């Protein structure tokens, strides 16, 4: 009897201001010159109204309607929570309300949605996870048992670190690279650590996340009963449906019928005796591992490549990434807390994502999410800011 694990990633980055070479060395108030407050607030409020608030309300209703048999999991990034605290405290209250139902689980990740899991040393990674842990304890008085790294980036080194930090499970992509012929609908063990690995069923997840409104897709139109039937025909212990929360109302607009789909899904699923819902913690507790996964190289849920080329696929991205790491070493020696915080905001992986030059299908996805017309503009802006921060790190 497969349990459906619905997991939503909730994240907003702090997008950057236009920052030209002439600004380098001439910044006074760093936060307001680096980050585009107006744009960020505008986008956040737009997405909150189109997606976060209506989806929260709908899910809360559904949990109550099905008396807790409909169960879901979330991870909220630190930057997202800061947005809530600054602009929409009622949104955070609504997440608390959801959590109080007992049908909602919370997952830890890096506070800044960063690529620190790929740095040469994992000290920064660990610090950001602890920051996230503290935040969840402060707001929800809860200690997550399951971890998900930025964009589901996973390798053996990360697995060991996460096990060392006391987590029972980790989420990542059900990539063929680590599964081979095996199904993502089971729980596996990391090859080098005592850690359960939940793997995203990318076909079923992307049916909702990407293909829901694609008219040229044979599954169109996707209805709740059709989708529930597909799942009831699936074999395994778990069906991991991991997706961006913004799927609801933002990537898929209200006009596509995505909310109607979501509204009817729990009822349709629960019509099948063979299906139920579980949070990620419950899935990790309930099911045993059936094998091991070995990931010497990093995988992720991004793009068709399902690796880290989305953020580190060209020389511009690698140059920024190296610069970022270098600045971090300098700042940590100095111990300037304000600059350290700014540096961490700049670690949010979105900044590197905008610089991706991957063409065609993936590139179109990137373009949709990017505030820049072309990746080269994104590079100049980000690199100029890093140069300014580097000057400050060296001179302060």
């Amino acid at each position, binding site marked *: 009897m497969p349990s459906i694990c619905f997991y939503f990633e909730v994240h907003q980055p702090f997008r950057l201001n236009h920052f030209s*070479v002439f600004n380098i060395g001439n910044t006074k108030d760093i936060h307001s010159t680096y980050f585009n407050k107006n744009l960020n607030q505008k986008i956040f409020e737009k997405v909150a109204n189109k997606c976060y608030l209506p989806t929260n309300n709908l899910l809360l209703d559904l949990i109550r309607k099905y008396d807790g048999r409909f169960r879901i999991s979330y991870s909220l990034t630190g930057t997202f929570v800061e947005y809530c605290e600054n602009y929409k405290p009622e949104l955070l209250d609504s997440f608390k309300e959801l959590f109080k139902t007992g049908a909602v689980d919370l997952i830890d990740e890096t506070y800044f949605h960063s690529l620190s899991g790929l740095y040469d040393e994992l000290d920064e990674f660990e610090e950001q996870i602890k920051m996230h842990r503290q935040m969840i304890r402060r707001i929800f008085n809860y200690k997550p048992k399951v971890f998900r790294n930025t964009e589901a980036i996973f390798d053996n080194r990360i697995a060991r670190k996460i096990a060392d930090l006391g987590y029972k499970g980790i989420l990542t992509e059900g990539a063929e690279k680590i599964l081979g012929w095996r199904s993502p609908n089971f729980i596996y063990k990391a090859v080098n650590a005592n850690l359960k690995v939940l793997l995203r069923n990318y076909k079923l997840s992307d049916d909702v996340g990407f293909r829901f409104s694609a008219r040229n897709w044979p599954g169109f139109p996707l209805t709740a009963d059709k989708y529930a039937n597909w799942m009831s025909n699936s074999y395994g212990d778990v069906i991991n449906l991991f997706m961006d929360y913004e799927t609801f109302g933002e990537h898929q607009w209200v006009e596509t019928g995505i909310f109607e789909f979501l509204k009817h899904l729990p009822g349709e699923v629960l019509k099948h005796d063979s299906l139920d819902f579980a949070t990620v913690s419950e899935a990790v507790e309930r099911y045993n591992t059936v094998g091991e996964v070995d990931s010497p190289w990093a995988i992720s849920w991004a793009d068709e490549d399902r690796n880290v080329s989305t953020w580190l696929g060209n020389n*511009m991205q690698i140059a920024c990434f190296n610069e970022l790491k270098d600045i971090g070493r300098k700042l940590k020696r100095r111990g300037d807390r304000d600059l350290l915080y700014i540096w961490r905001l700049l670690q949010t992986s979105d900044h590197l994502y905008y610089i991706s030059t991957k063409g065609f299908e993936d590139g179109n996805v990137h373009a949709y999410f990017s505030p820049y017309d072309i990746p080269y503009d994104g*590079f100049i802006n980000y690199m100029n800011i890093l140069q300014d921060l580097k000057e400050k790190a060296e001179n302060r």
Partner: protein
Amino acid sequence: MKIAMIGWEYPPFKVGGLGTHCYGLTHGLADKNVHIDFYMPKLRQKVKSDNKNIHIIEVGESEVYPYDRPDDKEIGGKFFDAVYRYNELLVSRIKGKYDVIHCHDWLTMKAAIAVKEKLGIPLVLTVHSTEYDRSGWIYPNQWFIDIEREGMQKADRIIAVSEFTKRVVVEKYGINPDKITVVHNAVYPIGEGEKRNLILFLGRLTIQKGPEFFLKTAKKVLDYEDARFVIAGIGDMLPKLIEQAVHLGISHKVIFTGKLTEEEVKHIYKISSIYVMPSVSEPFGITALEAISAGTPTIVSKSAGVSEVLKNCFKVDFWDTDEMANKIIALLRYDSLRDTMTQSSKREIQLFTWDRVAERTLQVYRGLV
């Protein structure tokens, strides 16, 4: 299929995108077994065809002046005389059986209309630029506009080199958008050379091309980074530009090349590190494709047609010299940017073939015969 194409310039005699386009288009069509009689003014230097399907027919006795918009009244007078004489002679000389007449820009429109009436066959007009572009949208001359409008009205189909140009033809000349097809230009790749610390402007030194913005940008860049700025080309703004460079205190960093031969143009593309096209109004801008094909990262004006189709280049408002300088300095400072842009744009440029231009043009012909 046999086409009477009426042109104005053809390599090696050419001053702009028009000649390049005619060469690429005629060869692309010839490869598709279309026969072309290419009519053009008689020149001191003889132009020879290098393809059996293309016949070059020179018309006229006197040398004519390059495609331009002369400010000097005396030269201007001679120029217009030459255009008129060419057009009249062409009508009397043209003979043979053709399926379509294809003409390019205002210089050839009078003749094309007369030939259309004489032979009773359909007329295709390619608009490479309009009077609005050439004047930089400052005091466009009604005399040219009237000729252009008449040609556009009488043409059975119009090919515009960009969506931008199509809009001008619709909005400024009141032409039905349904008879306009957009066919973006192409390039014969030039190949990369050993790069030097040169930043290049190449084009006629006229208001339309925005060379004064290039100099203002140069000044801003030179406050931060060292480089030499090359202004390649001639035009009525040359004295003013020299003065401007002196006034900005950067004349020692600016090189005016004067008129370059085709070989010299290729060479300068090859050795330049960055190409800048700050045009006030640019229907397409083939030079951007040429520069990229020579491995030169390129910054184009947002008001250039090429910016509609080219992804791997910077797009800047022509007046925004701060931003232009920002991009140039970034390209000079950050190797990773220069390398990535060079590689990606060279890959992209392979899509811009004359074969594609010929194919689309042929589709337009087929719609008429």
